[in-house]
């Protein structure tokens, strides 16, 4: 087991200068914002969990439940997280469940929903707009990130350790900035022209086709808005840090840990307020021989089950590490620690490697909710609670005024905000 985190060690190692926007917020506009700044981080894998070692005994509801083996690294944080049993999105589909985690809406059914299959991180990104340099950051470590979707059904491409570090801290040179400025201006002119063309073309279309053309108009509008949002950030300097650029490919545990450090830095510098991460497994790591997908089809065989437990426990251990990093940082704007204002969701849209999508593994930490319990929801089909309710609760907690999200039927009963 690891030794407890030394707060000073982390602060010294990181040596981050606070990002300018946050300074401005501190001196000027902090009062205008009625709610504290909140962040959302989703940590996920693509294969679910080995349920027998992940979920507490279903009879142990409430605060005094025995912590199951996979969750052992969270022992120290018992009072700061909640584990949910019997929540899911009510669909089937094995691996197809994975992209559904953060909305409850399957991509091919998205057209039937007012906001499509937008994921909760992207909804938050829309809400935050250009307040941070990056409306959201979609990350991957040794895995493909399949869980972030825009409202038009676009799966947001993800970046790795190196790319994230560079995005956060590496300044574009003068030439790069000038060319970026010029590109934005050029694209703005191009968009004017094509909108004009689309108007001309639209006049000769039938009613059905005109409706389809709306997608094009909306795309142009949205792109123009994005350019406007990005422009001011061109000239603002990025935060500086002493934290070295992480090397990649150093193994499952090392890579994931390095990513946790970058996530903490991203939050500390207010570079973004919505993050999703998918992490996997480097073949033959941990002294095992084989790949994640193979292990996930465990068929209850000892060797595969043991491998899964190792992999999952590491993921939970790194989640605990992230929680420590955030607890060690004061939040200069909202008071308390960064952890108090950051919701961390661990989960997967496929419950187990055996392709079940029932009883999804879901853990929520931080964010100011009241934590510390094992919450068990009804198991019977007719009384099941949609997991999207948890997502809606997270959204509301974030400050987004929404009454529904994805397949939600309301906010999650039994989950309360604590201090805000």
């Amino acid at each position, binding site marked *: 087991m690891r030794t407890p985190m030394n707060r000073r060690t982390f602060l010294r190692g990181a040596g981050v200068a606070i990002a300018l926007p946050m300074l401005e917020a501190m001196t000027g506009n902090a009062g205008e914002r009625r709610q504290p700044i909140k962040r959302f981080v989703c940590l996920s894998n693509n294969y679910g969990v080995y349920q027998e070692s992940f979920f507490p005994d279903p009879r142990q509801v409430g605060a005094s439940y025995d912590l199951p083996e996979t969750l052992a690294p969270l022992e120290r944080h018992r009072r700061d997280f909640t584990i949910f049993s019997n929540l899911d999105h009510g669909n089937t589909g094995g691996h197809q469940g994975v992209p559904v985690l953060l909305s409850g809406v399957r991509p091919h059914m998205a057209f039937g929903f007012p906001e499509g299959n937008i994921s909760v991180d992207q909804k938050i990104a829309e809400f935050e707009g250009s307040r941070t340099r990056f409306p959201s950051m979609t990350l991957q470590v040794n895995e493909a990130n399949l869980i972030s979707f825009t409202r038009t*059904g*676009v799966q947001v491409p993800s970046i790795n350790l190196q790319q994230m570090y560079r995005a956060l801290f590496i300044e574009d040179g003068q030439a790069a900035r000038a060319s970026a400025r010029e590109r934005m*201006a050029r694209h703005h002119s191009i968009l004017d022209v094509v909108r004009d063309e689309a108007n001309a073309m639209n006049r000769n279309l039938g009613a059905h086709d005109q409706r389809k053309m709306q*997608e094009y108009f909306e795309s142009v509008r949205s792109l123009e808005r994005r350019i406007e949002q990005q422009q001011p950030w061109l000239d603002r300097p990025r935060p500086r840090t002493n934290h070295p650029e992480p090397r990649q490919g150093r193994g499952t545990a090392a890579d994931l840990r390095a990513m946790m450090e970058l996530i903490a830095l991203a939050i500390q510098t207010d570079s973004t307020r919505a993050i999703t991460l998918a992490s*996997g497994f480097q073949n033959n790591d941990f002294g095992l021989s084989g790949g994640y997908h193979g292990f996930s089809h465990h068929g209850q065989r000892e060797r595969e089950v043991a491998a899964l437990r190792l992999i999952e426990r590491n993921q939970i251990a790194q989640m605990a590490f992230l929680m420590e990093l955030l607890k060690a940082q004061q939040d200069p704007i909202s008071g308390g620690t960064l952890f108090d204002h950051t919701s961390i969701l661990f989960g997967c849209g496929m419950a187990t490697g055996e392709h079940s999508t029932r009883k999804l593994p879901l853990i929520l930490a931080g964010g100011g909710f009241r934590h510390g319990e094992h919450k068990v929801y009804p198991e019977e089909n007719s009384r099941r609670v949609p997991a999207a309710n948890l997502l809606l609760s997270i959204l509301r907690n974030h400050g987004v005024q929404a009454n529904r999200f994805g397949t939600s039927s309301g906010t999650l009963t039994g989950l309360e905000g604590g201090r805000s």
Partner: protein
Amino acid sequence: MISISFRRLRLSVIQPIFQNAKPQAAWIAWLAFFAIASPNLLHADSPLDASRSFLKQHCFECHGPKKQANNLRFDTLGNDLAKKAEAEVWQGILDQLNAGTMPPKGKPRPDAKEAASVIQLLTTQLKEAYAKSSSTGGKTLLRRLNRLEFRNTLRDLLFLEGTADFQPDVMVKLEDRNGDGVARWSSNDPTREFPADELEGGLDTIGGRLVMSDFLLTKIISAAEYSLDLATYSGKAPSFEPKRFVAPISTGGNGGWAVWSREVDPSFDGIYQRYREPGAAAGGMGCITSNKLSTGVGITGRYRITIEASAHNQRHPWGDVIKSKQDEPMLLGLHIVDAPGGGLGENHRSILVKQWELAGDGNKHVLQFELTMDGKWLPWIGWENAPYERSLTPSKLVQKVLPNAYKPPPGKGSTEKERQQYEPAMARALFKAGYSGPHLRIYNLTVEPLEKSWPPKRHVALYGENDNVPVEDLILRFAERAFRKSVKPDEVARYVKLVDAQQKKGRSRAEALRAGYTAMIASPRFYYFSEAEGPLDGLALASRLSYFLWSSMPDDELLSLAKTDALKEPAVLRKQIDRMLDDPKSRSFVRRFTARWLHLDKLGTMPPPGGFYFHRNMEAEMLKQTDAFFADLIKTNGPIRNIIDSDYTFLNERVAHWIYHRDDVWGDGFRKVPAKAPHGGGMLTMPGIMTATANGVDTSPVVRGVWVLESILGTPPSPPPPDVEPLSPDLRKARTIREQLEAHRKQESCRSCHQKIDPFGFPFENFNELGLWRTVYKDSGKALKIDPSAIFADGTRAADISELRKILLKREDQITRNLAERLLAYASGRMVERVDRGEVDRIVSASMQQGNGLRDLIKLVAESRIFRTK
């Protein structure tokens, strides 16, 4: 409005009607009232009534007042075929009767004659109803280009043919090349970061389904700018002199044999072995090319490659030491490979472009090939069916053929130097005596550019011969091709204005023009199909036709025929279809359509772990195999039934050796060979399909059964009920999948669907998740025998895959119908609806009458009303 295949809609439409208890009760009460009060009001007189006594006798037991299996009830079914819901139920009844799946096994079969007359009645009634309602549905919605179409169009619009990663059948995707779960890019394809296209019915050409988003629009603009850069040149003209390389062409580091041969006779480069070991380790030996080409041939464009070569000793007496194919001519292969890729023999991006058969008689031949290739690529020569290096140990050869020169290998106490020099000494002895084993001799290699203008044509097309060419002219010329129609100057005024404005802001003429071109490419006039409702005019038809058969824009010949509407004449249309199918650009159609129709696009999503799949580049090889088979059917107008079973197949050495365990096919090129047991012919058991219908770890008869029903027969089963838990095999007890699926048979609610699905999947169990043949499952240390037999819903049995093929062949017209509908949907940009039934029927019966050739079917599709109407 989104068109959905009606079959899938059937149950979801019916359930709401029948499921809601309260209104149903009221409704039935009213029904009863009217039934008593006025018997005729319930069913107004209709020819359909003639079938009701049949239905009562054979169907009402499970689909009547007492029981409504699958929520279907027939005694209260109306006969107004104008109502979509009712028509779908009648259509469902007809489908089940036709397939013989109803009544189910165990129930008394209806009299054959009676059933036939009911089938006939329903068929004609429904046909009429569909024809009547043809004005209501079946329109293609505004359709955008998909990713492949966009990339190909950029290639043709900007004259980028030959540029790597614009090849018709290569579609770059994120690739996990070493199985570690992380996918990395490996190309310069401008569309490599495009989001996946939205699918409907597995197809990515359905207008109503494809979506435009701000994300996609950004990518379109970037891709346009990137591609315009590729077509822009600066600086002085390079030399256009042909590059001639005379032996020794390959210098140094090419393996012992080449060096030893050169010592004795430097007038040729000898090739003695294969360029790659069967373990697919990178070679480099036996690859002839010049160092001077190491950065590529120069400028992307058209080249003529000339090789002077001779082949020797195809037949030789050294057969038991040198393993070569003595009864096959020696194959000289010309490959191209990207320069930075390195590793000639096993570079994944190396492409075999031409093979020549050479008689092993020692006569010199001059071989020539013209191709358009990327300037950063280079040609290399190899011997396709050469023996492998390991059968060419010089000492063994000397021992056999020159016993007098033979010396035994240095034994204990010898020095390192002695050991190292042993084989070379033996080899020199061989050559001194005159090597009479099989080999190729390459005397010279010439690379000659055929496009000698500077700047190249693609640059001039964008910027004119010089700066004095007016911007308006360039824009207009570009627009005619980009917008695929005739264009008037006022239609492009906005683009000219943009170019002028950019120049005023200080951009150069070239930069400003590029902005204008980018805007045109991002504009809806380029990115969407321009089709007015009703019968398509010549230009709209040309576009649809070229995107159907080439996944790209029409070429000049097609466009000029279209402008005069000549294209609409049947004879002209047929001739163009033939021309287009023979053009290499149709490789996009072959690759794309088979990937979508047969779900081969799933390859790589759940790859088998371990080195086999990646190191041997199996995925690419599998797709080349399915391409070769399908393309051959098109070329020869082969019968569609060959897809199910044929006495031939297509193999190259790698697939033959590793998957089929056959050693009678040599070389990288795919060719037609006789099919052999147990794999047999047809496409169904090809490794590409077997891998795509498995999950990389194990196989499932349910998945493959669904695949057969969906892709081959066109009768996809309903999805499983929402609260069914997926199969969680408990492999500790080592039960076979058949034993585990027994659960389906035991439960009433599962059985009705699974008895239709599982039997189509069991016979495939002899093929593992890579398509390798197996007779036992090996798991948990035990070997469990595989039982590939199947019992169908109507009682028919299939003992194994061969019998399943025979059963499928009996349904040739159903299979043809499904293929026709896929082709129609793919080509027309909309799903086929019941309103199209009449037209589909006509196409299918016309095809069956003509022998059911694939090429003919494609023509029937392109000439159909569905294809030629918006």
